């Protein structure tokens, strides 16, 4: 699991952590059953307060993204295709919202903006 946290950003560190793990799970880079580093290991790696990491893990457990195994290790939970598709959609919407605002300011229609996005997504595919 590769995580990068900007500790001096105004975005709460726990939220950066939650977002990145969610993204990696939704995108399939973290698979069901994959083990998540312990609070201690991640704290040492990122120089991040362990309380912050516990908070992020607890939130992801509540959401059903992670689950705690009897042996106390935390793993990615298996989820249905529908939830995962919904999660991916929600993530994309969040990421696109600021761009929608830029498009409006530039006077670019939804259709034009959509076309640009389609082109960029397909370009990357190739």
């Amino acid at each position, binding site marked *: 699991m590769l995580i990068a946290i900007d*500790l*001096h*950003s*105004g*975005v*709460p*560190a*726990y*939220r950066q952590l939650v977002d990145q793990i969610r993204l990696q799970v939704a995108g399939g880079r973290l698979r069901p059953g994959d083990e998540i580093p312990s*609070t*201690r290991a991640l*704290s*040492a790696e990122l*120089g*991040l*307060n*362990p*309380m*912050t990491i516990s*908070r992020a893990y607890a939130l992801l457990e509540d959401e059903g993204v992670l689950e705690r195994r009897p042996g106390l290790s935390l793993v990615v939970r298996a989820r249905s295709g529908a939830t995962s598709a919904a999660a991916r959609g929600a993530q994309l919407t969040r990421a696109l919202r*600021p761009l929608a*605002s830029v498009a*409006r*300011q530039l006077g670019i229609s939804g259709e034009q903006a959509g076309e640009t996005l389609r082109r960029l997504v397909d370009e990357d595919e190739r």
Partner: protein
Amino acid sequence: MGELIVETSGLTKEFGEVTALRDVSIALSGPSIIGLIGRNASGKTTLLRHIVGLQLPTRGQARTFGVPTRRLGHEQLARIGVVPQLPNFIGWMSVREQLRYLSAFYPRWDLDRQSFLLDLLDLDARSEVGGLSAGNAQKVAIVAALCRHPDLILLDEPVSMLDPIVRDSFLKLLLDLVQEDNATIVISSHVLHDIESTVDWIVCLDAGTLAANAALDDLKDQYAEWRVLARSRDLPARFEGPFVLRHTVVNPRAARLIVRAAEADRLAFQQTHDVDVEVAPLNLQGLFPILVDSRRH
């Protein structure tokens, strides 16, 4: 959260005409790393001294480990490690002799940790304590405070004196202590950038009054700067709303607001005023003047 470590209620401290602390009520649980922030002379050091019983309240109460601080005994004091801004040592002793002398008072003194810390902080154990620079004297105080595995560590402006490389390893060390010893650490500082990565809780004092007492991430969740851009018509002269804390009109089409608001507030705000809102998060440096200011209004 775990055990309640420090608790003050209505804590007020007067020095003659001067009120150093005014009606401060906080409850700190551990393990945790608490950033005690405030401008110069805002009462940070006075609060730390009350926690360990070096000063007693004029009014109100202070309890540490559940014991009123005027009755803290050896059992509780041995669980507290204090690093003052200007530590006092026996000047003619070497660093090693000074530490050996102190270790006699503490049954939990850890010699392995002592040599580890001397190394980490780049201290020469042979130098005479009296001849040390202020920064190095503070490092000796850090070693002395941490070798006894305290449950509560009070650090008064420790990072300002440390050079950048030592400062980094020192802050990482605090993260280890929280996990290894389940310690609760209170670290006072006005160098906000340094402690931002390490602390999870903020206590902010302003002229002796409590201006904030909350999880750092909660503060970052609540406060933000909104850059408001008109869509069709010009912006109103001012924006009302319980969540608008500051308001700067840049021009008729653009304004800058500091808000304490939720995502739902922003969506409603965009609709009502027909504007686009860019949310710029605030880091600790950006939050600090707002915390101090919002108390005044």
